[in-house]
């Protein structure tokens, strides 16, 4: 099973598409929910934007008001994207548990990498799309000035961040496998921790030591600071090369690492009979 022949490769590609297509069909069927979620992420991004406006009015750092606003908005927008990917991927597994399809998916002759990649890639594309909609609303609303920002360099950072994000997504998918009942709540808790340590709304330096260490290990930290540098601090693609390299390297560790952890959790679930019980 290590060498892939061409027909086998075609089968994996077809299966990859099958997972993404399934997720797309589900989104289509539950579109009302999706609109609600979009509304939710929109209002949370907007409220952070207005938080910045409020700080400006209250006289806090009025000089740098636009900068502060952009700083916070970038954080909140990126967080809504990253957290939606995280949620969608772990949800994709727990969903199958409610529907009872999980055993069929795990029994199918498909590599686990293909399965998880299919789900992660869909979550990423869909998350980007949703964030683009929120961004399109936020730009005119807050009269954001992006004229001195290097959007190309920021996009490059975002693209490179996809790789470690797939790894984090795979780790998120492990949680509902570990505990049928509490997996979703665990995913929420882990997400909250990532929000705390990844420098979404403040620089890492304000955190106590151990949290800073955790923040340095999180690829989200570098994604956020890289994108802020491109949008706020006049950095260009050339300056971003170390960040891009670091993100890709983190992905190179996180994806295989995530697969190993997932494989362990799958084995444990099969040992303990956690996949499904009835029947």
């Amino acid at each position: 099973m290590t060498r892939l022949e061409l027909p086998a490769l075609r089968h994996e590609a077809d299966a990859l598409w099958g997972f993404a297509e399934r997720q797309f069909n589900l989104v289509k069927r539950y579109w009302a929910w999706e609109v609600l979620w979009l509304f939710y992420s929109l209002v949370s991004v907007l409220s952070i934007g207005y938080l910045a406006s409020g700080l400006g009015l209250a006289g806090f750092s009025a000089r740098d008001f636009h900068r502060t606003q952009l700083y916070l908005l970038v954080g909140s927008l990126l967080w809504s994207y990253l957290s939606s990917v995280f949620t969608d991927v772990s949800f994709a597994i727990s969903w199958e548990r409610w529907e009872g399809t999980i055993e069929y998916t795990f029994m199918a002759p498909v590599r686990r990498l293909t399965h998880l990649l299919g789900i992660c890639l869909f979550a990423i594309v869909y998350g980007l799309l949703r964030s683009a909609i929120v961004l399109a609303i936020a730009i005119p609303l807050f009269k954001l000035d992006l004229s001195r920002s290097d959007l190309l360099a920021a996009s490059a950072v975002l693209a490179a961040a996809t790789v470690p994000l797939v790894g984090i997504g795979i780790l998120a998918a492990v949680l509902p496998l570990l505990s049928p009942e509490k997996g979703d709540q665990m995913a929420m808790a882990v997400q909250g921790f990532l929000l705390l340590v990844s420098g979404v709304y403040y620089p890492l330096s304000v955190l106590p030591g151990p949290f800073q260490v955790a923040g340095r290990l999180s690829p989200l930290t570098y994604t956020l600071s890289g994108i802020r540098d491109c949008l706020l601090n006049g950095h260009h693609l050339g300056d971003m090369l170390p960040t891009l390299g670091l993100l890709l390297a983190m992905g190179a560790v996180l994806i295989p690492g995530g697969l190993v952890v997932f494989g362990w959790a799958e084995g444990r679930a099969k040992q303990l009979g956690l996949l499904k019980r009835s029947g």
Partner: protein
Amino acid sequence: MNEKTAVSLSGVAKGFRTWKRGPNGAWWRRRRDLKVALEPLDLNVPAGGVTGIIGPNGSGKSTLIRILGTLLTPDSGSASVFGLDVVAQAPSVRRHINRVSVEASFFKELSCWENMLYAARLYGSADSGARRRVEQLMERLGLPGDTLDRPMKQLSRGQQQKVAIARSFMTTPSLLLLDEPTTGLDPRSKREVQELLRSLRREREVTVLLCTHDLDEAAALSDRVIMLDYGKVLADGTPAELCERFGQPDLEEVFMQLSGRSLAEDEEESE
């Protein structure tokens, strides 16, 4: 029929960890318990033919099916499908099997076809002829022509079960694991499923393990019937042989006699 072995189990045992709380113990105190589903079980099933597995509720039938389906790992012993170990060579085993479980498991908001297409993609059979093949299968199972484009949640339980059967046939498995496939079907639908199974056997070589509580069905379809209890084989033979051996007119009476006897044995053991 050739002499290839489809399923081979040697000393396969499985138990599940459960937690027990005493009636008046403290709320945080739980005792770990082991629920035995399968005692060490040896079994050989040659390729081709239908093997019926019967047994009371909780006798380990579904556990056995799940072990063969690579969904549960045995605690000890080894199990193989067409010579491939279900744990060490699980990915290869998966290419040869499919399963129908008691509950039809689908994405209920998705249409029947969307569910089928998903399965077809996972099994590498989603070519241009896939839809036609699925339509033919559904027709043979007596499902109305418009079923394919209706959301699964609008189908009755029996109809969903038939779609699940069609899904498993669509992927042309060599080993078909049927866990109470006709539970919840009306008598006509049962016959349609049984007829489809028979014609499938005529068309290509397939080995079927059929767990069922419908003993007439077991008698009608199976070349060999195995009665399980706690993973122990209580009886093994063709339906006619079993009736003769236990001096009973049909399998139901054999079942009654054997399960009654195991109850009596249980009582003896616990005394």
